[in-house]
């Protein structure tokens, strides 16, 4: 059972076609590393590696259902919901979900925090993301820093920051210069430049604003 060029190429072809490669046992660590390297190379191809709209929908549904079930019936039996099961695909996530539901009492929210409804987060940093001069007046510019995907909007010497994550299903928003608003590539939600949602079938939350400051001509964002 030696690794050989044909077998490796089959694996490579699967990756290039975005198919799941066959899980054949490998003879040695070199063979494994060759495949891990192939995966890394595949992901560097332009356009690769963003989650699909369809996947985000399924995930959102399942996560939402898990969260709801947990808050509705804290003692519920280990019964994976139908929708949760749809998520699982070929691997055994159903078992994981059952386990999650089984221990819900452990993960219930801490009462003292619920009363106040806000959490204080420590350990953030200010990170420079752009020079002020790079920002055009009034036109949102996308940036990414730490866990934050956002837009910077300059107004004179002031810069506002807005989250770029759609409050519908967490796709990353685009800014349309033509229509002067944020648009979601997944389900068409739109937001004004102040973050307010517009014209969507179900009511969405506005885009959260981010803390931004200008320091010596550098725009800095508070990130974690």
């Amino acid at each position, binding site marked *: 059972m030696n690794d050989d060029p044909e077998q490796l190429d089959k694996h490579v072809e699967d990756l290039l076609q975005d198919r799941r490669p066959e899980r054949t046992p490998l003879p040695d660590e070199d063979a494994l590393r060759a495949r891990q390297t192939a995966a890394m190379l595949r992901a560097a191809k332009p356009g690769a590696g963003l989650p699909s709209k369809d996947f985000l929908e399924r995930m959102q549904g399942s*996560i939402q259902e898990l969260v709801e079930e947990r808050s509705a019936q804290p003692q519920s039996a280990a019964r994976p919901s139908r929708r949760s099961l749809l998520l699982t695909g070929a691997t055994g996530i159903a078992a994981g979900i059952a386990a999650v539901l089984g221990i819900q009492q452990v993960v219930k929210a801490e009462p003292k925090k619920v009363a106040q409804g806000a959490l204080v987060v420590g350990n953030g940093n200010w990170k420079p993301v752009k020079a002020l001069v790079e920002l055009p007046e009034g036109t949102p510019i996308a940036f990414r820093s730490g866990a934050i995907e956002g837009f910077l909007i300059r107004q004179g010497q002031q810069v506002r920051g807005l989250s770029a994550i759609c409050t519908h299903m967490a796709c990353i928003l685009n800014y349309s210069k033509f229509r002067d608003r944020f648009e979601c590539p997944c389900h068409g939600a739109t937001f004004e430049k102040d973050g307010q949602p517009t014209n969507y079938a179900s009511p969405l939350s506005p885009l959260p604003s981010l803390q931004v400051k200008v320091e010596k001509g550098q725009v800095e964002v508070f990130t974690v």
Partner: protein
Amino acid sequence: MREEERTGAAIASSGKIVPLPHADAPHGQDHLTWAYQTHVTAIYQYIYGRVGNRPDAEDLTAQVFVKAINGMRSDVSVPELRSWLYRVAQTTLADHWREYYAEGAGELEDDVTQQPAPRENPEAVQRVDSLLATLPESYRRVLELRFLRGYSVRETAQELSLSETNVKVLQFRALNRAGRERGRPS
């Protein structure tokens, strides 16, 4: 209404998690939804960068969030949450590779444990660039053509004036060499 409840949790001005507009919703719910929404894309990209195909990336991402919800507390800080999610992603990937090869299937890059920074596609590209730079010219060429430009074996063979069999052999050697380079402690 329901939609609003679901999506209300948010990053506030200082990276805090702010309450929902509807304060009667249980807090743990906000936190989970928020944790999911703000990290799903980054975790997916991180995993995709290591398995290189959509079906596996989707399954493993789902597994990570299901496992992470399992251990989630509502009073966790954002850095803790992120480092937790990346740790779960790492062990999930290690289990995944174990299906191919039982021993020594740990992820090669253990730096995540120390530095749970989100992995971004630009960074994936950079990792690849520095890896390719360590390879001899012919190895680099075949990997660039196949992976970054998406050439078929036949097209690669034409481009390099080789037979298709030789392209596969070259690709085999290049990937094995690159794999060893990555495994080498730096």
